[in-house]
């Protein structure tokens, strides 16, 4: 199964425009927030990236997760609605390849999403903190690196949620069921207390984490847990596909 044909399958599904529009919507959050309430945030001696993340990331992350969930549902919806899945399963390749390629596709879209958000945050830093809080080329360089690091971290932490969404979507033939389960999971994630480390490892809760202002130890723990979750969900999908094949 090649990646190119996966890309071809998403034509006219609204998958691509949804991610682009979602990216701009999420990017608009910090810009609008600064536009209306910049007085609350601009103070001397603050870390602009940390301030911007603290103020906006919860909303942006929620948009990201909803988008990832919907993307995952669309990807499997096209497989199941007109029975294309059956044709796919009569072709000589492993079904797990289909899953991996869909994951790569979501990963690619998430990267674009995060890039748009990075640009928005970068713009906010430059426009509202430039000259007052950030000084000189070195200061800008430092901010750029910080933004890239933060969003790289966010990109990594959104992956377990993306995989779990795809996993759910691949199990349920009816898109509405997978969407419903996903929405319930996201809701549960927003209700979990943020100070509990174990509970915040729930894949749908992880994307709400922020790099700026977090202790390096905690960051390290989250990264380890994130990679472990990625491996576990991938294994679970392989097992599930195997089991489904032997029960049908």
């Amino acid at each position, binding site marked *: 199964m*090649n990646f190119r*044909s996966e890309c071809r*399958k998403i*034509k006219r599904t609204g998958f691509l425009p949804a991610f682009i529009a979602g990216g701009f919507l999420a990017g608009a959050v910090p810009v609008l927030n600064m536009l209306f309430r910049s007085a609350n945030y601009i103070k001397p001696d603050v870390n602009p990236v940390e301030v911007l993340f603290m103020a906006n990331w919860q909303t942006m992350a929620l948009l990201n997760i909803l988008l990832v969930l919907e993307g995952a549902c669309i990807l499997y919806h*096209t497989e199941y609605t*007109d029975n*294309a899945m*059956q*044709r796919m399963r009569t072709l000589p390749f*492993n079904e797990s390849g289909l899953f991996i390629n869909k994951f790569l596709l979501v990963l690619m879209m998430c990267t674009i999403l995060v890039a748009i958000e990075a640009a928005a945050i970068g713009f906010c830093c430059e426009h509202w903190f430039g000259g007052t809080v950030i000084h000189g080329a070195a200061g800008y360089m430092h901010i750029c690196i910080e933004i890239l690091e933060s969003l790289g971290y966010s990109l990594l932490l959104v992956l377990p949620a993306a995989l779990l969404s795809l996993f759910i979507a691949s199990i349920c033939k009816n898109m509405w069921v997978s969407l419903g389960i996903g929405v319930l999971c996201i809701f549960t994630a927003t209700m979990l207390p943020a100070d509990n480390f174990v509970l915040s490892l729930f894949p749908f809760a992880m994307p709400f984490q922020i790099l700026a202002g977090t202790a390096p130890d905690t960051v390290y723990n989250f990264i380890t847990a994130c990679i472990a979750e990625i491996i576990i969900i991938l294994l679970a999908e392989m097992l599930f596909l195997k089991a489904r094949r032997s029960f049908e």
Partner: protein
Amino acid sequence: MNIIETSNLTKSYAGFFAVTELCLHIPKGKVYGFLGPNGAGKSTVMKMLLGLTRPTKGSFVIDGKRYPESRIEILKEIGSFIEAPSFYGNLTGKENLEIVQSILGLPASAVDEAMELTGITQYKDRPARKYSLGMKQRLGLASALLGRPPVLILDEPTNGLDPVGIHEIRTLVRSLPQKFDCTVLVSSHLLSEIELMADNIGILNHGHLLFEGTLNELRQMAALRGYPYDNLEDTFLAIINDDNMQRSGIK
């Protein structure tokens, strides 16, 4: 030489036997007509041959490869079309075929050839969900024919087509063994249709194989057992009726 052989193939769902101890012998380079009333288990057998359903018992060999060990190898040799046509509604007919083509690693010309054969070339740029039932059926057939597979499994390929379409598809199926040097397993619940396409036939009822052989052998068998044999439709009905009577007698 038989290209497909099944031995004691059985599929049961919670006490209900969809297919019982089926032993099929499908000779290479022929059109094999698979005949039976609705719900006889034709689709189940075809799904098992494609690995879509796991047999409860028994195994089969396709072109010397045994299931389940060489599932992927087997799939490489089969072009298939099962039940309702399966496709991506958001993609055009051509794009649907291109996806299958790239998975099978075929040259781009294979798509044009398949579209030409099934007569969908002029509709290739229309989204598949806007196709009429007949067009969807043709699209499914085109995707089965892609890359000239040595074995073709077609489940009621003429369903939903108009008389002209039925005739075209029949002629196409009939010509495939010579054209592509392939073997065709085609199912139908109409004997009149199978009669025009197939060299060999197998009759299935309630998951049991009632007859397997050439059309002439069917006539001989009918004459021997006292079934009507001048009209094959009547022969088929008599065989099925007789079997149903015996079955209800057992119960």
